[in-house]
């Protein structure tokens, strides 16, 4: 697998704000980018799509530039989400590239990678080419598209991975369903050598998950709802880590949810297997206790698990066993959620709340430090071959301006996403994204901030 060398701007999008590009100065912000070793007050100068300069606070003199007075605010390396569902094609009533990329920008993400479980599934070169073309017309931030590992996502025959790679897919995944057959998994990992693209895995043993719709444990026992045991996830990760080791392949494990899974990934990494993995903001901040009210907003796959699992995910994130935070942004229409819990669709939207949820639940109480969170929120680019966002002179400008003091009620001002199925809806969170610069262009300004009243 090649190193992470591609710029985020090589993904597809229509560019940022219209009009002549001006230089941009974010004056006096606290700049934090642990990868670049930056943590201090600076004027950030953006010119020609790059971070031109990190000047001393108040020192930058750039004639003609737009100046944002950012004292008391923070500038981070922008976030990068390697796991979103943009429901295009097929379910544009739930999300499309325009609304989904706006939601990403509003959450501080400078790029996002869309999964292939569309209707019909994205499983051919023309499918990928069509999505890329659409992104160039509609997307507010750079978007990449994964294609299915198997035709029609049925887990049986491989897609034409080489041709799909030539069409510009950024990787392969059957996310939404696991690749049940170890034989098919092995073939895919063998074929990966030819295409040199990452394979992202939704790890779940359908035999163990059965018809389960929440974590199997004391809460499911109390509710009488069939459970999805933790081992449904961890045993499949163990299987695929072994296959990857055997084939000297590379796998990216999606949405870790269980303590057992963290242990399996940790052991695989220690054994030298090329495995990366992600965890979601909801698994890092919520547990199955939230399911007690049978509110389908808390129904996801993998399910919210126990406090022990949540702690293990946090420890894994801190230690670097978990490489990045990915939202698994999964829009659903209200009629798919306003039904009894067991009948409801799985998934929560997450792009617009990712930072605030983690900042409020994990950084403010001192569970994780802010630098780790920024590093992991921008950590989704490298496993897919893209250079991580950096706030350093000469780097492509991918940065986010955040007010860490601002408190807001989730959903009260509406959503950029077309769907509203958020597990954080109604929560009061701290930390508001005010502005996102993606691949050198302003991709988002928070409304009241843009009007100068924030």
């Amino acid at each position, binding site marked *: 697998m090649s190193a992470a060398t591609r710029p985020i701007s090589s993904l597809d999008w229509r560019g940022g704000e219209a009009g002549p590009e001006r230089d941009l100065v974010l004056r006096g912000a606290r700049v934090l980018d642990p990868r670049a070793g930056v943590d201090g007050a600076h004027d950030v100068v953006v010119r020609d799509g790059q971070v031109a300069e990190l000047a001393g606070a108040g020192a930058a003199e750039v004639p003609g530039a737009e100046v944002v007075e950012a004292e008391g605010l923070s500038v981070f390396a922008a976030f990068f989400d390697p796991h979103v569902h943009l429901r295009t094609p097929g379910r544009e009533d739930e999300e499309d590239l325009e609304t989904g990329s706006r939601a990403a920008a509003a959450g501080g993400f400078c790029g996002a990678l869309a999964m292939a479980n569309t209707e019909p599934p994205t499983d051919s070169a023309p499918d990928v080419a069509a999505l890329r073309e659409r992104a160039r017309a509609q997307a507010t931030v750079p978007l990449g598209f994964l294609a299915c590992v198997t035709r029609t996502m049925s887990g049986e025959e491989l897609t034409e991975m080489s041709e799909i790679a030539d069409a510009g897919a950024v990787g392969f995944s059957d996310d939404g369903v696991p690749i049940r057959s170890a034989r098919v998994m092995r073939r895919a990992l063998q074929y990966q050598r030819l295409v040199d693209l990452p394979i992202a895995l939704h790890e779940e043993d359908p035999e163990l998950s059965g018809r389960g719709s929440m974590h199997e444990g004391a809460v499911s026992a109390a509710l009488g709802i069939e459970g999805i045991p933790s081992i449904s996830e961890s045993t499949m990760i163990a299987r695929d880590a072994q296959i990857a080791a055997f084939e000297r392949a590379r796998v990216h494990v999606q949405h870790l949810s269980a303590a057992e899974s963290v242990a399996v990934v940790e052991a695989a990494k220690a054994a030298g297997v090329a495995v990366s993995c992600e965890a979601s903001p909801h698994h890092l901040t919520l547990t199955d206790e939230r399911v007690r*009210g049978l509110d389908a907003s808390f129904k996801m796959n993998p399910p919210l698990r126990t406090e022990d699992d949540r702690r293990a995910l946090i420890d894994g994130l801190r230690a670097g066993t978990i490489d990045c935070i990915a939202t698994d942004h999964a829009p659903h229409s209200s009629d798919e959620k306003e039904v009894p819990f067991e009948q409801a669709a799985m998934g929560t939207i997450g792009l617009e709340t990712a930072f605030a949820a983690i900042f409020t639940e994990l950084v403010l109480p001192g569970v994780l430090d802010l630098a780790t969170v920024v590093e992991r929120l921008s950590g989704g680019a490298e496993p897919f071959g893209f250079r991580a966002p950096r706030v350093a002179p000469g780097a492509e400008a991918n940065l986010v301006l955040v007010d860490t003091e601002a408190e807001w009620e989730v959903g009260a001002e509406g959503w950029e996403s077309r769907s509203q199925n958020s597990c954080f809806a109604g929560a009061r969170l701290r930390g508001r994204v005010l502005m996102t610069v993606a691949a050198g262009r302003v991709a988002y300004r928070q409304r009241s901030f843009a009007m100068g009243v924030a």
Partner: protein
Amino acid sequence: MRHLLAIEDLERADVDRIMARARSFAEVGRRDIKKVPTLRGRTIVSLFYESSTRTSSSFELAAKRLSADVVAVKSAGSAVDKGESLRDTIATLSAYAPAAIVIRHPYAGAANLVTGWTSAAVINAGDGKHEHPSQALLDAYTLLDRLGAVDGRRREDLDGKRIWIVGDVLHSRVARSCALCFRMMGAEVTVCGPPSLIPRGITEALGVEVAHDLDALGEADVVYALRMQRERMSESFVPSVREYVAHYQIDSRRLGARQLLMHPGPVNRGVELSPEVVDGPASLITAQVESGLVVRMAILYELLAGGEPRGAGAADRDAELPAPTPIGEPA
């Protein structure tokens, strides 16, 4: 109480109030004219998405005994068959301004959801494998009735009683509601069954003991057997009916002379219970059905005509509860 959704939501005082009210309705039931005018002019909708004999008939009769008008909707043959969503069905039925909706649904939390879509009181008559609160209340009532007086006073708790719930606990809403209700009333509850049919985490969830064989069944004052569905065999939860019967059937050798036997019905004779114990002297199965009527009358009364007790301890003074006046007698 506004709705009856789950035993988990109830306070002990709620249960005591319903027990006391059920006793007063039992007295009415011994009169020639068994109907009271309490809910005259009010409509009760019964909406069953799963088959039911005793629960639906007993709620309907309870409503009629209280003079309510009853609309019974079964999913087969209704708009539900035509793909109407639960939300739309509730909106339609709510247009008749019912005082209460009694709902049984194959999925957990359906009754909770309905409360958000109607102004009617909602009674959960079974939601998936979650809860069946009216069953637990009628079982508690049956036990209080049968366990007899304490110090010359009518029994109002199950303190010190040991109750074993035997069978397919995993798939049983009755087991969950009964375990919570019996424990709330002071009993110690043990659930017993094959490990594949006892949910992981049940002790933490419900505060019950777990047993996997009947060796210590002798300690039980009450044996509550659950229905064992034959489809569990094909799903590999147990290898065969024969093996299940050998390990878990309650028969006259396993059931001691002083032990009471309960079952929520319908019974699979020869599976969870041997025929002779179903009809034996220890069996409360018919008494449970009788209790169902008065307890469901009490539930409807509590939600539609009752109110919170006026002060602490009010539930203890059932003598103060106004006796319902039968129709035909001067009110």
